[in-house]
């Protein structure tokens, strides 16, 4: 009997289930059709709106960009067609990579179409111009807080511990930060306080999930609930009777000479509070540490295959302790940053940003860079859910606020691309 023939080279059958990709394509196409018919053809032929790019504070802008007036109908028809084209491409070609990126692009195009439609004139809106720069600046505080939270999540989950307590660390950081900033009038001390309290909450999470191998999700949720209660109690007992502890100062912007005067980019990136710059640096530092250094390799090994890490002498439990505490500290700092942008601590005012940050972490595939992109999209939609009220849009802002969660559900359900968490994420480790 002759058996010899060429052996096949590949390992896994490359055929991917195409049904999910098709579902995405159909979803994208629906968004495109909606844009085309409601925003585009639904607007009168004569309606127009304009985009402006100059900061509100015109004095600081050396170069004026003026405004870009456009026909709402044709702009949104074109945007709708682009979305439909992307949907068709996904449906026909079924690319294996980049489906998520295309989906992000579609979301962005949709938001632009929504804005130009909301501001249309003649229409219900008070103003017919949409100031892109002020939207970006306005949402940057939200984005910043989400990035701190998502980085915290990256640190913890890459080492295999789920940090649901980010929201609690925000609350703790914001509360303590407000007290310190109010009494010392120094945001640096407030930041130290935030790092401390966030790290401490991280330590509690680490202690229960690593020492006692408790369910990390439950410990995290308990911590958030507990801190919510504690902050209410302390607000009532301390902040209300002693308003000097909660003066609600906002951290000053530190304009970077020269750079801050670049149109659009300047106000968004270089005329911000110190917290924003720290956040930008932190993104780079976490990325570098995780993917270039020995420390990062150990962290990722511990998060993917702790037994393999242990077999080469890496102390799994220690790596996890360190990362959960560091991650907690980052989220605590995020809480202070939130307070420094919003002012006065109020009960419940982090309004679930910690969970949106976790969603951004998943959407960003557990990478700092991806998480930043997700934070921008999510931050924008959270901001717009408030901002759209000024355009008298007949749609509730609460519906738009659901947007990040809808995207996240789609992502987690595996509808858009395949996300793969670190293999040991959430798994207690036990030496045998």
């Amino acid at each position: 009997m002759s058996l010899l023939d060429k052996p096949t080279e590949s390992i896994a059958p490359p055929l991917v289930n195409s049904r999910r990709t098709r579902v995405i394509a159909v979803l994208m196409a629906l968004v495109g059709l909606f844009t085309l018919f409601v925003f585009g053809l639904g607007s009168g032929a004569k309606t127009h709106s304009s985009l402006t790019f100059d900061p509100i504070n015109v004095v600081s802008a050396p170069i004026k960009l003026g405004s870009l007036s456009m026909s709402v109908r044709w702009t949104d028809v074109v945007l709708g067609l682009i979305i439909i084209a992307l949907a068709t491409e996904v449906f026909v070609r079924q690319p294996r990579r980049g489906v998520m990126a295309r989906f992000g692009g579609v979301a962005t195009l949709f938001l632009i179409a929504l804005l130009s439609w909301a501001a249309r004139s003649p229409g219900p809106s008070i103003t017919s111009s949409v100031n892109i720069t002020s939207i970006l600046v306005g949402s940057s505080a939200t984005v910043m807080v989400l990035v701190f939270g998502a980085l915290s999540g990256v640190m913890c989950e890459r080492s295999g511990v789920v940090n649901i307590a980010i929201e609690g660390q925000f609350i703790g950081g914001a509360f303590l930060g407000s007290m310190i900033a109010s009494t010392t009038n120094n945001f640096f001390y407030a930041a130290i306080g935030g790092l401390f309290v966030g790290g401490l909450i991280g330590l509690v999470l680490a202690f229960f999930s690593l020492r006692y191998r408790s369910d990390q999700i439950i410990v995290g949720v308990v911590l958030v609930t507990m801190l919510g209660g504690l902050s209410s109690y302390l607000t009532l007992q301390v902040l209300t009777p002693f308003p000097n502890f909660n003066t609600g100062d906002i951290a000053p912007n530190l304009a970077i000479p020269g750079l801050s005067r670049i149109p659009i980019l300047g106000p968004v990136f270089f005329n911000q509070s110190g917290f924003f710059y720290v956040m930008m640096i932190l993104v780079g530092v976490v990325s570098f540490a995780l993917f270039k250094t020995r420390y990062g390799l150990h962290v990722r090994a511990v998060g993917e295959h702790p037994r393999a890490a242990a077999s080469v002498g890496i102390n799994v439990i220690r790596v996890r302790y360190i990362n959960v505490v560091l991650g907690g500290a980052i989220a605590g700092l995020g809480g202070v940053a939130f307070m420094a942008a919003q002012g006065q601590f109020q009960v419940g005012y982090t309004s679930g940003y910690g969970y949106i940050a976790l969603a951004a972490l998943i959407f960003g595939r557990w990478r700092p860079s991806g998480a930043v992109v997700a934070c921008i999209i999510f931050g924008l939609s959270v901001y717009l859910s408030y901002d759209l009220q000024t355009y008298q849009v007949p749609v509730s802002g609460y519906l738009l606020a659901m947007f990040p969660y809808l995207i996240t559900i789609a992502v987690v359900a595996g509808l858009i691309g395949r996300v793969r968490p670190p293999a040991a994420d959430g798994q207690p480790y036990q030496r045998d």
Partner: protein
Amino acid sequence: MRLELRGITKRFGSLIANDQISLTVEPGQIHSLLGENGAGKSTLMNVLFGLLSPDEGDILINGVATRISDSGDAVRCGIGMVHQHFMLVPVFSVTENVVLGFEPTKSFNRIDYNAATEDIRRLSRQFNLEVDPDAIIENLPVGTQQRVEIIKALSHDAELLILDEPTAVLTPQEIDALMEVMRSLASAGKSILFITHKLKEVKAIADVITVLRHGRIVGTAEPTASESELATLMVGREVKLTVEKSPYKPGDEVLHIRDLVVLDDRGLVAVNGVSLTVRAGEVLALAGVQGNGQTELVEALVGMRPVLSGTITLHGRDVTHLTPRKALDAGIGHIPEDRHRDGLILSMSVADNLVLNTPRRAPFASRGTRNLAAVSENAVRLVKEFDIRTTSIEAPTSSLSGGNQQKVIVARELSRSLEFLVASQPTRGLDVGSIEYVHHQIVEHRNRGNGSLIVSSELDEVLALGDRIAVMFEGKISGIVDPSTSRESIGLLMAGHTMEATSV
């Protein structure tokens, strides 16, 4: 490196896993540690690698008594271990896995990947261990992953390599390649401790054989000893290594699978257009390296996994989209590959596990109420008939040994009248005595004129049981041959070569 173990004893409660073990491995020697599952081989290796600390005894490395308190110590002493379940991070590259824990660094704690890659290239040239340093582990075949494990150990300057059941997941050709590597390592002066329960391999490669049974060394043997001598030493009594079957008399077609397509958990195609036929009075053995779609095929047959396309018929009746319960009712018996996950409810009693497939039926239940007397009666009868060793029929199944747990499943499945039997890795992890028994039961079932599909990654088992042998590779049937075919030819099919002409 010269390794000497003196009087190593390790107890777990009242159980003595290692009892006064003494052995010596000389430099350049391939020393085989032969024993059944549960004989204490793994415990001994974990002691040696610092994962367990011995209660008594000494480890001497080059004549010096050494304390090994964790795996880091072991590596620093020059001991490298290739675990049975690879200790590789699937999403990391080869280089990342090799350097893990021992990274060469440059400024800012950055890992010097160029230096690491050079090191890997040098080792792979020196010992003929071909591997691409940039490949991602999960994309590599198992044999290559094992090479990475060996390179990893060597890059940490291992002088003694422990290979724990290294051949369990390999094709016959990969096993040959591994043996070549072992020989070249030995001739370069490395010592090798080779742990296995496979007699053929021991005879092929070992310089010295130490046999372990019930935690004790029961003897040493030369590689010239016959397989049956080794088996007798290992099991403690004489064992039959072949299964006696009545002559092959295939009857009517029982099971017919046509163009079956099934997805795995990740949504990838695992079974890719498989067509098979099984006749009455026939065992069709499905061979193949694990992970080539056998699991998914079996799960689809018994209703545990949806079928994407294709048909399955049993006696001409369409059984393609049955739920597990309907599949049971249709008379399909199933011995699952993972008995703890799919075969038993470990916390429940032996008696309850023996009726798991028919809990709602008379006589075990009527009008929604269980008939416990009938359940007990059934258990007493089957425990006797199938020689299940248990303290009581009410004992939790978890208290039974692996072999007896498997007997519970076999008893449950084969004690009712079946139209068809599907058995997946029916003897995995069993001792030789239990293997003999399970094989005997399967052959009895066949001799009664029933059809069976037996999936196994053990070639010996496939050859012993199969009346015809189908080989599966990457979701397809790469060939169907009869059991007189040489091991080499079947090995080629397992590695993905296809047949030019199907002669059966």
